[in-house]
């Protein structure tokens, strides 16, 4: 299978993570420009049904590698590097999830090649190379990168590309057996502290609260507004460290990067560490009592006022509109 692009699919309990399927879309564009095949490489446990999913979302062929877990770095890095050595892909795309960002740098060393990180744009250059857009300095600058070595590797941010429409596919499915060697780290326990599943990346509406909400009790207003709008709750680091809400909701440098259609920032001052994570939103509404708060610099509409007054009134108005 010469001349292909690999799209590495991370799975959780046999289901492919969204970013894996999303990456097929840019991979197919590059593949079309260079007459390559788009090959999904699916790794994980119990993959018989999973492989079909990748095919239905547009992969020209699927390679499966059965491993003992949904992820463990040494095994996965070994397996992906071995598959790459066998098939020599022109490019390897990996989702920029926590696991993907753990995996990609190791594979890059094993293949002695470069890797673009957290890619938000992909296009074919006139130079025959893939041009990757990577945010730097917290997203205030975008770097366009090329990779001089093969395969051209990249971790791709979730939510940037749209999945293809699924269709029944007869794409070839190849099972590869790989026995990982040189395993040095071992996951001895997986602890689930956070039971709620919070899908900030795919949310169309996010209502986020910051330190300015003042207390856990007041923070419930953020949840109420999110409920009225059918949105998801986000937060800066302060409410999380104060225990008002779980870490799963964190947006910014040490949390999620989001780009919803509507982002409402409540009592958020707008430190760059947070703005980094939400500045890509289509429409930003900010509520803050400090009229000099930097959050207003990125907001489409800034409301100078006390969140405890503004949010309840906003909820009332929205309810009236939707009645």
């Amino acid at each position, binding site marked *: 299978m010469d001349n292909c692009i690999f799209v590495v699919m991370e799975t959780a309990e046999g289901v492919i993570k969204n970013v894996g399927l999303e990456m097929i879309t840019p991979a197919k564009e590059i593949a079309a420009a260079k007459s390559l095949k788009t090959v999904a490489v699916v790794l994980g446990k119990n993959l018989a049904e999973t492989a079909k999913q990748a095919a239905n979302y547009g992969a020209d062929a699927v390679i499966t590698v059965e491993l003992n877990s949904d992820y463990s*770095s040494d095994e996965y*890095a070994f397996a992906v590097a071995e598959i790459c050595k066998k098939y020599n892909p022109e490019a390897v795309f990996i989702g920029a999830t*926590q696991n993907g*960002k*753990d995996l990609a*740098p*190791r594979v*890059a*060393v094993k293949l*002695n*090649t*470069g*890797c673009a*990180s*957290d890619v938000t744009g992909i296009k074919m*250059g006139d130079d025959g190379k893939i041009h990757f857009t990577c945010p*730097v*300095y*917290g997203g*205030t*600058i*975008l*770097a*366009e*990168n090329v*990779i*001089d*070595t093969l395969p051209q590797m990249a971790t791709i941010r979730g939510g940037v590309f749209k999945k293809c429409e699924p269709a029944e596919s007869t794409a070839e499915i190849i099972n590869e057996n790989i026995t990982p060697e040189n395993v*040095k*780290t*071992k*996951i*001895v*326990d997986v*602890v*689930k*502290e*956070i*039971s709620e599943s919070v899908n900030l990346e795919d949310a169309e509406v996010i209502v986020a609260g910051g330190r300015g909400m003042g207390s856990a009790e007041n923070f419930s207003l953020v949840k109420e507004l999110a409920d009225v709008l059918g949105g998801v709750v986000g937060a800066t*680091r302060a409410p999380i460290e104060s225990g008002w809400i779980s870490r*799963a909701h964190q947006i910014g*440098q*040490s949390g999620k990067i989001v780009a919803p259609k509507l982002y409402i920032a409540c009592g958020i001052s707008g430190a*760059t560490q947070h703005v980094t994570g939400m*500045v*890509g939103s289509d*429409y*930003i*509404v900010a509520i803050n009592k400090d009229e000099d708060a930097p959050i*207003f610099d990125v*907001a*489409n*509409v*800034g*409301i100078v*006022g006390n969140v405890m007054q*503004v949010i309840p*009134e*906003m909820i009332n108005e*929205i309810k009236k509109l939707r009645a």
Partner: protein
Amino acid sequence: MEILVCVKQVPDDSVKIGLNSSGKPAVDGVTMVANAFDTYALEMATRLKEANEGTITVVAIGPEKAKDALKSCLAVGASKAYIVNEDGLGDMDSLTTGYTLSKAVAKIEELNGAKFDIIFCGKETTDCTTGMVGAQLAERLGIGCVTGIVDIELKDGGISVKQETEEGYNVVETSLPAVVTVNKPAYDPRYPTMKSKMAARKIPIGEISKADLGVEDDKIVPSVKVISLSEPPKKQAGVKINEKTFEDTMAKAMEILKDAKVF
């Protein structure tokens, strides 16, 4: 226990950095600091050292001025510091940085006369944010690596670490030596005292040149090349609503939001 903490000096990440008139990142005049995640790594290493004895060495690759970041580390837990002078190393990407650091580790081990047990890195830098160097250093050294940890303890001659995940955390064990990359733990880095700052000033910073490292020239050619830099499209200038009364402010805000079909 011999501990190494890898540190990068970066522009203060609370300052928004755009492009200057010649299209380069406008970092002139921005205070340079130790990368935030590296300071978390140093704090975690210092707590481990305090609980178990040991010595912490810090290393940075950079210009002469990067010594300032090392001095700040010497005031909050580190007792030895080395700077790898970037002269002759050219533009670096993650791959060449990981390689160069692996050579620096070998050189410092030779100078210190002891092998490192644990190498700490921040999980990413706040300027380039690739988050790849720690894992790539471990690969080059051929030792185990756990990324994004928030806690560490010694166990059975190795380490047991808490690796943060979306749903909670994994407990991961590995033998030593190993590399760990550190996410924001539950605590903040400590502040230096006047006394610790004074003491830090007296500690000499070891200098390592490209020649000392013995790097192979073909291995420090970056694979990832930056073709161009741009700023993301600016948001259309927004409106800030601050009327005399709360009622007027809300009325105006709701009118705009309704017109924009936001609600």
